[in-house]
């Protein structure tokens, strides 16, 4: 989008610390406001449910969206995220609970009175109208005078780079251009709140990456409050100031992208974020602590972890020669992807995946050792999958990475293990986050 080249550099990798800081304080972000008054309104959902007969699509969820915030509703299909968005829009009536926008209770207001715009997955363009008429459709409904309509149209068309296409019909546009018409239609309304329902899922992968940046830049520039529904974790991680992960009509976790990545609240959240997903394996009991099932030699955590689930991200696993300390493993196979590789490993009776950089040296059947930082180990309850406050054993102490008691690598990590208290672990998660793998 040529209209805003200066904004492109602003947000590079979404996981850099500066951005994380901004994401946590959205109202304080510097935003370039569009001329014309935009009241800044908070959206608040209180115990909102949606039921159709016996099925419950959304089950008593509640959250707040601050003005100017980019919030992602993330989840697998059928988790209720689209229904939630449609209830905020007023296209579905909530079965229970209240929805507030600013000071107003909008739970029973018709969609047109809620002061928000929406971008649909199918774009919902009027096929018989030109691009220009599509964009100003809502202004005509609201009886905006013609001169003002034209002026706003010209401004928005430039913003989304559609000036040359105003006379065309939607059928004569490419997918990306249609997407921009849909965006323009919601921008021109000058509503402070924009809802987006999987707006990029009909685009090809390359265009999707481009539109992700454009939408994010537009949102920043116009200071819009955006609630964005997607099932694509890449969109969620790269665009969201905050991600609300949903499962079966409930909120699993509500936090910044790095919180979701670094401290998944449940085994589901752990498995949903990251590509490939976090390794999740059951832990068994051994003499010196909990071990990965079928691999009794190297304990990965204290006794209290046994019987629960252990999780480690593929990008956090370090592959080392067989004489190094760590968890013994055997290479099953490797997929070379260019920048990195996915290596499948047999550990006891379990399989893990690792994601080392470059091309792995190890052939199939090679014995090796695995290490990970203690803060890269996650533990989830066997019954309900909730996160457990257990710290993993330090399997190694690689120089430069280790932030706690420096010591030379022992025979196994078990020798130096002490269970950290929760706060120490929580802070270590933030301080020690030096390899976020999402944007690789």
């Amino acid at each position: 989008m040529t209209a805003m080249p200066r904004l492109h550099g602003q947000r590079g990798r979404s996981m850099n610390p500066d951005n994380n800081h901004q994401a946590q304080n959205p109202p304080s972000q510097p935003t370039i406001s569009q001329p014309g008054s935009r009241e800044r309104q908070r959206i608040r959902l209180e115990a909102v449910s949606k039921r159709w007969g016996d099925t419950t699509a959304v089950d008593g969820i509640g959250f707040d969206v601050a003005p100017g915030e980019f919030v992602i509703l993330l989840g697998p299909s059928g988790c209720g995220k689209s229904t939630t968005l449609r209830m905020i829009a007023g296209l579905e009536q909530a079965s229970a609970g209240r929805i507030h926008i600013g000071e107003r209770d909008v739970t029973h207001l018709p969609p047109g009175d809620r002061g928000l715009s929406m971008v649909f997955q199918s774009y919902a363009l009027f096929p018989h109208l030109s691009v220009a008429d599509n964009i100003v459709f809502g202004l005509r409904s609201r009886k905006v005078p013609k001169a003002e309509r034209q002026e706003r149209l010209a401004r928005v068309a430039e913003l989304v780079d559609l000036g040359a296409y105003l006379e065309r019909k939607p059928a004569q546009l490419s997918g990306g251009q249609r997407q921009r018409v849909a965006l323009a239609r919601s921008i021109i309304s000058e509503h402070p709140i924009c809802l987006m329902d999987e707006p990029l899922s009909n685009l090809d992968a390359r265009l999707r990456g481009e539109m992700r940046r454009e939408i994010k830049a537009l949102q920043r520039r116009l200071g819009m409050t955006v609630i964005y529904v997607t099932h694509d974790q890449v969109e969620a991680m790269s665009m969201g100031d905050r991600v609300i992960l949903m499962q079966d009509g409930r909120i699993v976790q509500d936090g910044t992208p790095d919180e979701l990545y670094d401290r998944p609240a449940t085994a589901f959240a752990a498995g949903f974020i990251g590509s490939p997903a976090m390794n999740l394996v059951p832990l068994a009991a051994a003499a010196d602590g909990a071990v990965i099932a079928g691999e009794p030699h190297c304990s990965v955590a204290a006794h209290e972890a046994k019987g629960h689930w252990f999780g480690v991200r593929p990008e956090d696993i370090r592959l080392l020669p067989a004489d190094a300390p760590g968890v013994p493993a055997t290479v099953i196979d490797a997929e070379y992807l260019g920048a990195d590789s996915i290596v499948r490993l047999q550990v006891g009776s379990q399989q893990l995946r690792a994601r080392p950089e470059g091309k792995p040296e190890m052939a199939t059947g090679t014995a090796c050792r695995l290490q990970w930082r203690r803060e890269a180990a996650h533990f989830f309850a066997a019954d309900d999958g909730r996160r457990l406050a257990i710290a993993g054993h330090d399997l190694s102490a690689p120089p430069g990475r280790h932030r706690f008691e420096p010591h030379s690598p022992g025979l196994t990590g078990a020798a130096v293990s002490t269970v950290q208290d929760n706060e120490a672990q929580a802070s270590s998660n933030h301080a020690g986050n030096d390899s976020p793998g999402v944007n690789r």
Partner: protein
Amino acid sequence: MLIRHADRRMQIYGALLLLPAAVLLGTFAYLPTVATLINSFFLPGFRGAPPEFVGLENYAMLVEDATFWKVARNNLIYALGTIPTSIALALGMALFVNARLPGRGFVRMAYFTPTILPMIAAANIWMFFYAPQIGLFNKLLGALGLSGVNWLGDPSMALTSVIVMTVWKEAGFFMIFYLAALQSIPPELEEASDLEGTSRWSFFWRVTFPLLMPTTLFVLINALINAVRVVDHLFILTKGGPNNATNLLLYYVYENAFSFFDRTYAATITVVILLVLAVVATLKFTVLDHRTHYQ
């Protein structure tokens, strides 16, 4: 050489595929049309004498035939009375049964029932409605203390009565086309316009109606053809009477051909009807096509 040969084979293959349809169309549409046109230049031969070529004499006679003009005028009134009404009614019914509504399937079926009935049966039912003494309408009027009307016997009333029955019969049929078209309009369009606070009325005229234009055009052509094609229910209801008050073009053709045995005069009227229909259809397509959005 070889390529040419293969080309020729493909052409023959294509022509053979077209042949069955071409034979059927030629035998039952184009041949009769040409025969009718030729017939219209002759006078019928009586008592075995060969038909006599008279050129445009039949057409000259037609221009001076007061009955023909009356029938043509009747047909125009009939078309103007049935086409807009049945289309508007069809659209209204389609919008109604497209909405969320209890017993929707039942209502749709009820609206469509008149179309399923054979014309003769439907006309017979309406005979009972319209009958002067025992008819339903006059019974109802009587119950309200009003004197009855001779629906089909009164020359000023008869054509209107026929028109009402036709609308009843056609609207359900056209509704099906509108219903199909309405269901092909994505529901997000209405949601998108709801979000802008667009009124239902405004949405209908700015979105629904333009998107239904292809259907409207199709229905319009069909309605026109139907308006000129009426024979069967005149046969049951009025036989064109009283005093040609309900006589329509095709029924007049039928009378000429099979009651007065003037085949060539009937052919002449048929040619005129075909010409008028062709002109009207061409006009409709050229004028409305520009304003019609095909998806």
